[in-house]
């Protein structure tokens, strides 16, 4: 028996989490210092070297890190099998020499491929023999619990880089800096060898060592491949921008890199508290770095890299979030590789890495695209690694405490939050009007809502408060919707668990996290996100009230339903379905008088309460209806439907494809017209789904949900025959959560095994994820109105005396929002005002209610202006076009 095992045996069987936290914090601190040193080196180089040389150094560093990719996996293997020193060292030295020779032998083609000097490639070759060995030796230090030695070897590298590299770079440029990096690696190796002398190894755990080696190898590839691909695929400007983001993101990833290595030997031996400690440290570290990126991105970039790299600022948050997820994912890999899901972990890592590379090559055309794809990859990775635990719910064992539903819901909510803020789109017309109204005094706002709006006042009232607290910034005005969009995730879980079971609830929550429709309206400063949240809560409350009938259940039902009505008048449709459900519940209890009385009493009381809560809306609605009747083609009546898409037959008669389009929007969000036509053509798949439903018994919960989907949809279809724009999913958006719950049920019922459940749920989430990416990033999405981009460009070049003409007139609010200082007028005001103007900008949207008349008006004005002025420029943003005349 070794000393280490005696030591282990002497310890309590389940040491406190705090005890497991100590080595984590010690090594994390060392790593943070090392990271700070490396960052300092990068900063120093950014200032000392010209941009082109700096980009070369960054690529060199990326290649240097690539060399250390196997080293990372060898660290994992060494941490789990520290006794295999002799064999491990021989393997590492031989492998390192082979790699070094190969690099030296292929210097010329590599230099051309990477657009690097040959000297840098040769330096890489020189670093290779030590790279693998360094990783292995560090792993042995982790495996033998020599955490102080780990810290020492971690600090050795930046010490050399800063001490030697900065001086040499100033004197001899990028080659000298790279040489200092190589020297730092060998110094770290020497420290590791010295620090590991005399260490007594623990037990070897061969199987996990192999799985961990594979998984960590690929996760390291995943971490670094985006930089290389960006360098190869993008132009130098975008590549440099990404290099800056990558440097900062690399620091975030670097900060959490040691956590799984500290964890591995402890997790393999089942030491209690080790996993929780590792997860906590990874989450906190990642969260802290992400917070910096969210709060002070400009300061980070300006302060650390300087103004030339400001293009990187918008990319910082998603990329830091990606690296934070990566940190968590690595801990999950360590946990999986020392547990029962080693192959699963390795498989997930390999697949996500490959998919990420393919996606970057196929889809990314700028630095932002690469950053977003990396974010998507890391979120997917963490989700895939977490899946086995999610599907094992409910988890009661203390050792699996971290996998409890609450933990996973928190993770899903975090993912939902990130997805809802990572690609915020600009304000569009309806939002701008809402914001404009919210800036009015309270009574004026209510007057305007009575006379010029068609919605109940709850959302607008809440926005009024938010605007006074947080201002009218984009994030501030969208805050309510974002929060509702995040809150709907646990609400879906609760409703799914109440209606069916917890598995269904968790799948529903997962679908709600990525559902493109939910994400879309979570980003819109309108009432739809709140409406969907209240709709879910009302279902949850009603089901609980009927089943167990506690006061809190009836209260949740009543308040949610009242809020639903105060948010949108079409809430009356789901409320009608609720009432039918109460009738059914009452009828089904005909053989149990006591139960029947209970349901009837609660139903009666809540109906009275609902009537009382909704009563104040009646005069408000009456005023709105009167004003609506008096209005003909007024400002709001002429707004585009936002239904966007020829396939849905906007502005024409309702077609079958309009119904299909609404169904597609509900599940997969908004897409370009062509994509919608293609998806709509896949309706035979719905025939298949109907066949698959044969033999499935329907429960009452499903009947309620079907009612909540079908009744509002059919009612608005009927209304749409009279007024086309009303057959539009957002007006019955409360049906979408019900549809998600039904989809979750359709996934969990046929999935008898965990693997089948994982496969079906992953497939569904994957389709939604792909649709989400297309919805958010594809400029051909007809619902994306980039007024922000267009007006930013106008205001950037506009000077005193310039005039902006816009068409149609209802763009006033959005122009006021983005360009408040511009002299802006509707096109209908005529061209007299432009006589003395400097530059005239004409802005129009592509999708308007009366496009022919609008286009004719724009054409007339442009022709008139061109008699006196020259058209110097015109540009397009999604659904917005601007002409510049001087």
């Amino acid at each position, binding site marked *: 028996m070794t000393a280490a095992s005696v030591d282990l045996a002497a310890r309590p069987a389940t040491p406190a989490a705090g005890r497991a936290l100590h080595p984590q914090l010690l090594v994390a601190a060392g790593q943070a210092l090392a990271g700070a040193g490396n960052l300092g080196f990068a900063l120093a180089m950014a200032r000392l070297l010209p941009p082109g040389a700096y980009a070369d150094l960054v690529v060199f560093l990326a290649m240097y890190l690539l060399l250390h990719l196997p080293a990372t996996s060898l660290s994992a293997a060494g941490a789990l099998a520290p006794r295999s020193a002799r064999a491990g060292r021989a393997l590492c030295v031989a492998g390192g020499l082979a790699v070094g020779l190969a690099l030296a032998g292929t210097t010329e083609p590599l230099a051309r491929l990477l657009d690097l000097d040959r000297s840098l490639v040769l330096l890489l070759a020189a670093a290779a023999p030590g790279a693998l060995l360094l990783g292995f030796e560090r792993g042995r230090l982790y495996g033998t619990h020599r955490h102080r030695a780990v810290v020492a070897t971690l600090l050795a590298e930046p010490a050399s880089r800063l001490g030697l590299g900065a001086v040499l770079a100033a004197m001899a440029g990028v080659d000298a800096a790279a040489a200092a990096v190589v020297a730092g690696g060998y110094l770290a190796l020497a420290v590791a060898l010295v620090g590991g002398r005399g260490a007594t190894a623990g037990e070897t755990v061969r199987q996990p060592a192999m799985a961990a080696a594979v998984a960590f190898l690929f996760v390291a590839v995943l971490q670094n491949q985006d930089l290389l691909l960006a360098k190869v695929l993008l132009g130098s400007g975008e590549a440099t921008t990404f290099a800056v983001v990558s440097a900062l993101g690399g620091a975030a990833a670097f900060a959490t890199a040691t956590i799984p290595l500290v964890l591995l030997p402890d997790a393999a031996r089942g030491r209690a508290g080790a996993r929780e400690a590792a997860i906590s440290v990874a989450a906190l570290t990642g969260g802290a770095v992400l917070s910096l990126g969210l709060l002070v991105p400009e300061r980070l970039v300006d302060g650390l890299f300087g103004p030339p790299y400001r293009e990187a600022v918008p990319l910082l948050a998603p990329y830091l979030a990606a690296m934070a997820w990566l940190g968590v994912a690595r801990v999950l890999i360590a946990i999986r590789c020392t547990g029962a899901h080693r192959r699963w972990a390795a498989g997930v890592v390999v697949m996500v890495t490959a998919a990420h590379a393919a996606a970057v090559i196929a889809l990314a055309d700028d630095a932002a695209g690469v950053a977003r794809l990396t974010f998507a990859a890391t979120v997917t990775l963490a989700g895939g690694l977490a899946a086995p635990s999610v599907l094992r719910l409910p988890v009661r064992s203390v050792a699996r405490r971290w996998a409890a539903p609450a933990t996973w819901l928190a993770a899903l909510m975090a993912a939902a939050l990130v997805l809802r803020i990572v690609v915020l789109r600009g304000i569009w017309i309806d939002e701008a009007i809402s914001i404009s109204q919210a800036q009015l005094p309270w009574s004026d706002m209510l007057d305007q809502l009575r006379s010029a709006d068609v919605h109940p006042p709850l959302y607008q009232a809440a926005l009024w408060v938010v605007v006074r607290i947080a201002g009218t910034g984009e994030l501030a005005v969208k805050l309510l919707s974002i929060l509702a969009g995040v809150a709907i995730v646990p609400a879906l879980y609760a409703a799914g668990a109440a209606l069916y079971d917890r598995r269904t609830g968790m799948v529903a929550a997962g679908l709600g996290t990525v559902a493109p429709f939910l994400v879309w309206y979570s980003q819109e400063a309108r009432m739809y996100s709140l409406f969907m949240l209240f709709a879910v809560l009302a279902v949850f409350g009603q089901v609980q009230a009927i089943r167990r009938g506690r006061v809190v259940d009836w209260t949740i039902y009543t308040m949610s339903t009242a809020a639903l009505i105060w948010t949108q008048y079409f809430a009356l449709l789901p409320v009608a379905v609720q009432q039918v459900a109460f009738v059914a519940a009452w009828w089904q209890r005909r053989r149990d008088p006591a139960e029947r009385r209970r349901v009837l009493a609660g139903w009666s009381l809540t109906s009275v309460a609902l009537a009382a809560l909704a009563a104040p809306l009646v005069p408000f609605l009456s005023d709105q209806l009167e004003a609506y009747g008096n209005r003909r083609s007024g400002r709001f009546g002429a707004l585009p439907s936002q239904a966007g898409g020829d396939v849905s037959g906007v502005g024409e008669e309702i077609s079958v494809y309009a119904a299909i389009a609404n169904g597609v929007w509900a599940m997969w969000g908004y897409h370009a017209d062509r994509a919608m036509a293609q998806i709509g053509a896949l309706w035979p798949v719905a025939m298949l789904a109907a066949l698959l*439903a044969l033999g499935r018994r329907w429960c009452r919960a499903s009947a309620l949900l079907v009612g909540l989907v079908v009744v509002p949809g059919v009612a608005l279809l009927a209304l749409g025959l009279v007024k086309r724009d009303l057959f539009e999913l957002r007006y019955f958006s409360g049906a979408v959560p019900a549809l998600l719950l039904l989809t979750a049920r359709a996934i969990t019922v046929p999935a008898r095994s965990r693997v089948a459940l994982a496969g079906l749920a992953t497939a569904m989430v994957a389709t939604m994820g792909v649709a989400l990416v297309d919805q958010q990033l594809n400029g051909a999405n007809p619902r994306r109105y980039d007024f922000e981009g267009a007006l930013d460009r106008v205001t950037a070049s506009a000077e005193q005396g310039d005039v902006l003409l816009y068409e149609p007139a209802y763009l006033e609010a959005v122009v006021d929002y983005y360009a408040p200082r511009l002299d802006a007028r509707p096109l209908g005001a005529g061209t007299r005002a432009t006589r003395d103007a400097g530059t005239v900008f004409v802005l129009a949207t592509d999708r308007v209610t009366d496009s022919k008349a609008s286009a004719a008006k724009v054409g007339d004005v442009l022709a008139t202006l061109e008699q006196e002025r020259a058209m110097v420029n015109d540009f397009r943003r999604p659904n917005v076009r601007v002409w510049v005349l001087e």
Partner: protein
Amino acid sequence: MTRWRIRLLGLGSLAFAVIYFVWLLTPARAGHPVLYGMLVVAEVFNAVQALGFWWTVAGDRPRPHVPPADGVVDVDVFIPVYNEPLDVVEATVAAAARLQGARVHVAVLDDGGSDELAAMASRYGARSVRRRDRAGAKAGNINHALARTTAPFVAVFDCDHVPDEQFLVRTLGHLQADDRAAFAQTPQYYANTGTGGIADAAWSQQALFFGTIARGKDARGSMICCGTNVLFRREALAEVGGFPEGSVTEDFALSIRLHERGWRTVYVPEVLARGLGPEDMASYVSQQQRWARGCVGSLRAVWRAKLPWRTRAQYALSAGFFLSGWTALVYMALPVVRIVTGAQPLASASADQFLLHFAPYYGASLLAVAVAGAGSYTFSAFSLTFATFWVHVYASIAALAGRRGRFVVTPKRGADRVQPVPALPALMAIAVLGGVGGYGLVRDTEPATLNNVAFAFMHVTVLASGARYAFRTGRAGRATAEESRPAEVAA
């Protein structure tokens, strides 16, 4: 409540069917004339089947129990055997010997000539009846025994169908109460279900028939004999000359003759015997081939029979079901032709309108099946029927050619190896549909092409689901009748 729900659904489905066919049969809808003709024929065939289904199930009503009359009656219990495993037969003989409600005389009709079987039968007080030849197969075997027995009632059980002790108690009263009742049929229940094997899917098909359809046929006086789990009046059998020996579905042919002579029939919708369904693909296909050839071959007899139109229509519907494989072939061919040649049955401008008119009809039809069958008819059952479309095609061609089928006993034990051969036509169809679908995707991603690729995908999924049973061994899905839990026919 349920009956009204079914009738309401039937009426709704009928309305949607009328809307669809009025639209479909307008000449302007025609695209390629041949393809249009094929589509119309297939759709009309299925609509007739659907109408027949709604009409049948609209009469679904529970038949009240009629207790047996006082006094002891004699019942001959026939168990036809032809080289089936002894343990399978023994369970049935033992249960037959325990039948209550009458004085039973169990006879094992052994066409295999097994001494072991005779010894086993004697242990249970049963006698073994043998004959010199095997003329007329099962029908000949029963007729041979009829000539050597005398009881006024005759119960027939296939050797793998274990009767419940109450079988005679629940059925005898119906024949005693009605002198013109020729037989009382009970469900042919498969007990070897619950393992996800082919027997489950086959039972799901049976459950729809022995549920609402059989009850509906009974209400319309048109229940057919299914050859097992049935109690006959000897007088009725004698009047029609016993079981017809010229058909591979002797029970179906017998029913026609009985109805022609004015005999009435009874269906008791209670599971009173538990049998074994096919446990592998070859067994299933063998059974379906026999039924298909027999029923399709009987269509001519149905046409010629002197039957009331309602009864004739019920027989035509039952026999005509075995032509539905042709419609599957048409539906599979249409997307293939469209992708490869561009020709399509409907004018392209009407795609949107097609969906508008077709979707309600399709949805209502499926809903009617789901509600009327109380969820008993599953996707697995449908896919198994679809994947064996070739059985119907082959059977009808053979019937048209006048080729007589041979009575083949359905194997009672599943094979211990995979059986890709019976699924070969389905696999070929999958290959063609998959290949053409892939070709379509490579060629273009226009909505019209995608629509046909989606149809191809749908067919591939259904075919694959049905064909998968060929790749399960019988052993994997095997369960004995004794191990299985009892079940009821969906009400």
